[in-house]
């Protein structure tokens, strides 16, 4: 016999029911996050063995309250479970439900049951039932719901083995729909529906009709047929309403006998914490304190691992160069690939720390309270309370931040969040700010206390934040998109975060950054390497020319090789590109050398400093102090004064505050909005504003 077929399991459930805990419990580290083909939603799949001979794959479908989707994530549940021909279609569905709010959880169960797939109801948090005074008659529930039911505690590993046994035995689970529910809604309508779709189950047909615009697997003719059917029967919302009422009637009747709760035993911890955390004054104070701690850790603690990573990659680069024989291939690895990888790795500490905090805040249930506190304020600017997480994440990196905007239900609010997030000062801008501020702002204290340099840095962050808010306001007034206020946020119970879930969430987000941004940064750094290490005639004869110009230099000396490197870069393709854009950037106070750095830093902003180091042939590239000294000496060829004076420095700083200098972000925006229109708009407007502001700054200051 051939190897056993892999059993396909789909994990479904309301948000905050411990679905992900169960997933982590079953699969351990054997999981991977990919993308669903053609769309952006993360697809989490894991593998484990049900017994010695039966391997299983399990997908963790996004949390949803209903099969009828309201966000992109929730749509996946519908798509996966409605198309039996798809490869994702599961053999069995495991629905995780919360013991405390079984009624609402059973609504989704009743919908899934009607899809006529084998389904197992796993009631989670069994360990807390006693404390909360809940008792459930499992056998009666099994009979009433016509399926297998199991009590589990994903965190305490209770009931997992029983669940596995039930999964193995999935073929014996009834696939009958619940009690002719659909027909009761409207006999005439559903009769006609069954006639139109004789090959689908009634509920499948109903979902096909009501959700056809969300279903990618339907052909155009099928969609037209659905639209036509709807045109003849335009009362869908009323039918959905009636359907929901009927479902709850059924559920209430079942729970009345099978589910008991002693209300007296419920704790009032929620109420007490809510009073403080959502207080009109203390609520904000606490939130800002938390923000302060987060930023403190990103900027302070993250420095150490970042320094370490930087040194490691520099050493790796030097070591590799020493091991390999010189040539194009070595140059590609040493100057293209390794620095490219280093440019990605350097941001991992900040991103991981930020998402550690966000994961903890989300796990505890606090984040929903922040959404509640901030919604009205954010709405003044066309954003949503749910925009807080993307904007916070933007201080580390815009890529995971923009991806975090997915759970904003209103398309307009989501789009505006995506469009303005890149204004938030990300960690890649920091090295540029640091070196230029050190160059043009004296290291003094205002009133003997505040550091002038630190104040300027803070102002730059503030300018970034304000431009995000103001652009959001303008976009809200100008974008002609109909706004639906489909804002519903569940306020989950407070709970201690599970270290396992937090760890997996951090790994997942960091991976998303590495593979999302990483690919582009790496590819671009290779293109830049090619452009910088190739060039026309002068580049090819660089060695002779440098010898002619510097006859006094020993050709094996370090100074000579640095001079040669600098000359080569200047006459490489990218050097010519720098010259080509010089007329455009001259009004901003930049010369062609800065132009080169502007071009290279388009891959990722932080490349700016490294490029300048190469152009100025700094002896020790890893040392920012020497780069700064060298930049200080650079002379403006026209005025004869230092190039990096106050006007040029300020102009550069403000350029980087506004400009859309990040290919990876543009790519992510394209992916998330499914159109080139929005990233093009960002590139055009942000860089336009940057140019204008820098021009005005330079003109007025000089």
């Amino acid at each position, binding site marked *: 016999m051939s190897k056993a077929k892999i059993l396909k399991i789909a994990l479904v459930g309301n948000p905050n029911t411990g679905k992900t805990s169960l997933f982590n419990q079953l699969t351990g580290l054997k999981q991977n996050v990919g993308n669903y083909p053609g769309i952006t939603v993360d697809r989490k799949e894991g593998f484990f063995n049900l017994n010695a001979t039966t391997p299983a794959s399990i997908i963790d479908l996004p949390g949803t*309250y*209903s099969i009828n989707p309201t966000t992109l994530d929730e749509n996946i549940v519908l798509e996966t479970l409605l198309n039996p021909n798809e490869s994702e279609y599961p053999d069995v569905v495991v629905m995780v439900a919360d013991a405390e*709010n079984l009624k*609402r959880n059973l609504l989704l169960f009743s919908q899934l049951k009607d899809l006529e797939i084998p389904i197992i109801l796993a009631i989670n948090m069994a360990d807390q039932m006693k404390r909360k005074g809940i008792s459930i008659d499992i056998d009666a529930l099994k009979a009433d719901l016509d399926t297998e039911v199991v009590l589990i505690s994903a965190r305490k590993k209770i009931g997992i083995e029983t669940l596995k046994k039930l999964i193995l035995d999935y073929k014996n689970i009834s696939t009958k729909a619940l009690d002719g529910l659909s027909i009761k809604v409207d006999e005439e309508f559903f009769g006609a529906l069954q006639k139109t779709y004789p090959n689908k189950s009634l509920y499948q047909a109903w979902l096909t009709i009501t959700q056809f615009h969300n279903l990618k697997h339907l052909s155009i003719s099928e969609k037209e047929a659905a639209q036509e059917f709807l045109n003849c029967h335009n009362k869908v919302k009323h039918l959905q309403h009636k359907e*929901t*009422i009927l479902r709850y009637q059924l559920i209430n009747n079942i729970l009345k006998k099978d589910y008991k709760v002693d209300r007296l035993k419920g704790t009032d911890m929620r109420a007490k914490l809510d009073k403080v955390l959502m207080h*009109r004054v203390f609520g904000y104070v606490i939130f800002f304190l938390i923000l302060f701690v987060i930023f403190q850790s990103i900027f302070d603690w993250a420095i150490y691992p970042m320094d370490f990573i930087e040194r490691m990659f520099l050493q790796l680069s030097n070591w590799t160069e020493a091991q390999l024989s010189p040539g194009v291939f070595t140059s590609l690895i040493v100057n293209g690939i390794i620095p490219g990888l280093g440019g990605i790795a350097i941001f991992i500490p900040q991103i991981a720390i930020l998402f550690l905090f966000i994961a903890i805040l989300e796990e505890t249930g606090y984040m929903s309270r922040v959404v509640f506190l901030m*919604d009205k304020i954010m709405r003044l600017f066309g954003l949503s309370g749910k925009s807080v997480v993307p904007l916070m994440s933007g201080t580390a990196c815009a890529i995971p931040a923009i991806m975090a905007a997915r759970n904003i239900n209103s398309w307009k609010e989501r789009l505006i969040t995506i469009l303005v997030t890149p204004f938030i000062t990300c960690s890649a801008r920091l090295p540029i700010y640091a070196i230029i501020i050190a160059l043009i702002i004296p290291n003094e204290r205002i009133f003997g206390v505040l550091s002038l340099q630190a104040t300027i840095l803070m102002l730059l962050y503030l300018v970034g934040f304000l431009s995000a808010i103001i652009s959001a306001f303008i976009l809200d007034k100008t974008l002609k998109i109909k706004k639906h206020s489909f804002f*519903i946020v*569940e306020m989950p119970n407070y709970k201690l975060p599970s270290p396992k879930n937090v760890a997996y969430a951090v790994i997942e987000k960091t991976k998303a950054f590495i593979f999302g941004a990483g690919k582009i940064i790496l590819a671009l750094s290779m293109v830049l390497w090619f452009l910088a290490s190739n060039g026309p005639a002068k580049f090819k004869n660089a060695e002779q020319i440098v010898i002619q110009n510097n006859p006094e230099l020993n050709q094996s000396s370090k100074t000579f090789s640095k001079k040669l490197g600098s000359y080569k870069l200047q006459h490489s393709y990218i050097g010519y590109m720098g010259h080509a854009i010089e007329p455009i950037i001259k009004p901003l106070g930049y010369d062609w050398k800065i132009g080169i750095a502007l071009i290279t830093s388009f891959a990722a902003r932080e490349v700016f400093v490294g490029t300048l180091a190469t152009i100025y042939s700094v002896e020790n590239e890893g040392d920012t102090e020497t780069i700064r000294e060298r930049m200080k000496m650079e002379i403006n060829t026209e005025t004869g004064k230092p190039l990096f004076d106050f006007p040029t420095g300020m102009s550069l700083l403000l350029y980087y505050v506004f400009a859309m200098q990040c290919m990876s972000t543009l790519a992510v925006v394209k992916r998330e909005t499914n159109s080139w229109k929005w990233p093009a708009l960002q590139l055009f407007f942000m860089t336009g504003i940057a140019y204008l502001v820098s021009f005005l700054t330079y003109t007025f200051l000089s």
Partner: protein
Amino acid sequence: MSKITVANLKVGERGLIEQVAIEHIPLNLLEMGCLPGKEVELIQVAPFNDPLYIRVNGSHLAIRRDVAAKIQIIKL
């Protein structure tokens, strides 16, 4: 005669849902149990008077005032 809605409740007050303006309310909210006959309690109001934090059908939800104003109730 003006109708009483969830938006008219004061913190701590409860009402019985009488009617919901189906066309103006997301299906999702109905499915959370915001249906005629259910009891709804206003738990808290966010600073600046919006959104509202309600308890309905055993769920704790935050909804915006404009949607709350579409849920007609009888005060309890």
